[in-house]
């Protein structure tokens, strides 16, 4: 039986998975190869394919893997928040969000965690756009334009510069785990939560990472949804700017 404090001093990698039966095993395997042992929590977001079966199999094979299944599909934000709640309750000091679709590179886990472990940063974002020396996959031109727009919007409204606000490869420190366990957007949460963090006194930083093209599944942002995504996130950020600050304070 797990105790309430079994995660102290350890890292929890949260892997939100919605219909990712094809890519999940590979993503988790890459995480388990990562040298300093991190625990892995797969949050199966009410998948209708074999994701749950794959996840349970992984948990049986590896002692460091746990699975939480949401009975109904609740959105990426709700899945990540579930993982953060788990991290909080088990006393983890550091949680990392890592996509199941194979986009994220476990080699960068240590670099992503380092500023948070050092206690310098509360939310550390893995950015595709910080180290432009290597030619590699950086999303499609249209998507990059969207990312630019959010980056500009965030800088304009709170003065914090973030190059990759849509990145889902992020490390959360204690304070972020606690605050996001309370409130976190349930759909398209990344840019909004970055803005909220920057405005509410969380220390936000970025480290350069490499990302791959997705190995399986379909992006949750495509076609008609793109317009909705852009408008929804923009409105959410603008309204948040009008809100009074909600952070814990010092």
């Amino acid at each position: 039986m797990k105790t309430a404090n079994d995660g102290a001093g350890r890292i929890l990698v949260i892997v939100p998975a919605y219909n990712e039966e094809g890519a999940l095993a590979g993503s988790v395997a890459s995480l388990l190869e990562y040298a300093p042992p991190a625990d892995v929590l797969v949050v199966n977001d009410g998948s209708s394919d074999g994701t749950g079966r794959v996840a349970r199999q992984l948990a049986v094979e590896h002692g460091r893997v746990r699975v939480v299944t949401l009975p109904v599909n609740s959105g990426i934000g709700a899945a990540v928040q579930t993982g953060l709640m788990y991290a909080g309750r088990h006393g983890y000091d550091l949680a990392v969000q890592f996509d199941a679709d194979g986009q994220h590179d476990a080699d960068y886990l240590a670099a992503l965690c380092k500023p948070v472990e050092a206690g310098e940063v509360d939310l550390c974002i893995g950015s595709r756009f910080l180290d432009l020396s290597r030619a590699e996959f950086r999303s499609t031109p249209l998507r990059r334009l969207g990312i630019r727009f959010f980056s500009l919007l965030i800088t304009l409204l709170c003065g914090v510069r973030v190059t990759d606000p849509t990145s889902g490869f992020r490390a959360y420190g204690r304070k972020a785990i606690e605050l996001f366990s309370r409130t976190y957007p349930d759909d398209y949460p990344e840019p909004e939560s970055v803005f909220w963090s920057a405005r509410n006194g969380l220390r936000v930083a970025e480290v350069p990472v490499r990302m791959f093209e997705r190995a399986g599944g379909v992006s949750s942002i495509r076609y008609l949804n793109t317009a909705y995504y852009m408008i929804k996130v923009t409105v959410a950020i603008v309204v948040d700017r009008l809100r009074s600050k909600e952070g814990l304070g010092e």
Partner: protein
Amino acid sequence: MNAELLMAICGGLVFVFTTYWVSRRQLRVKYALIWMFLACVILILGAFPKILMGLAAWARLSFPAAVLFIALGLIYLFCFSVSISLSRLHQRNLRLTQELALLEERLAEVEGR
């Protein structure tokens, strides 16, 4: 006070009201967008009454009849979308209740009761 000014005021009020409830986290942005869209429609029609008049002339309706038709159409659409959301919510709620009941039974079995 004329109809245009009234519409502009109403549109503005809908905007402010919607933003207020979103900022209180009592209204999801997803649904707020619908209401902000409505506010924009009211504002545009208020600012350019010619649109509504043109529409009325095109449909061979009197001005009040055209306004009533559009208003009823919007009310129908909005109410219908609320019904659909409510049905989905009901479905999710039902599934959660069932899952909880099954889980409780399983827990009791594991605890050997």
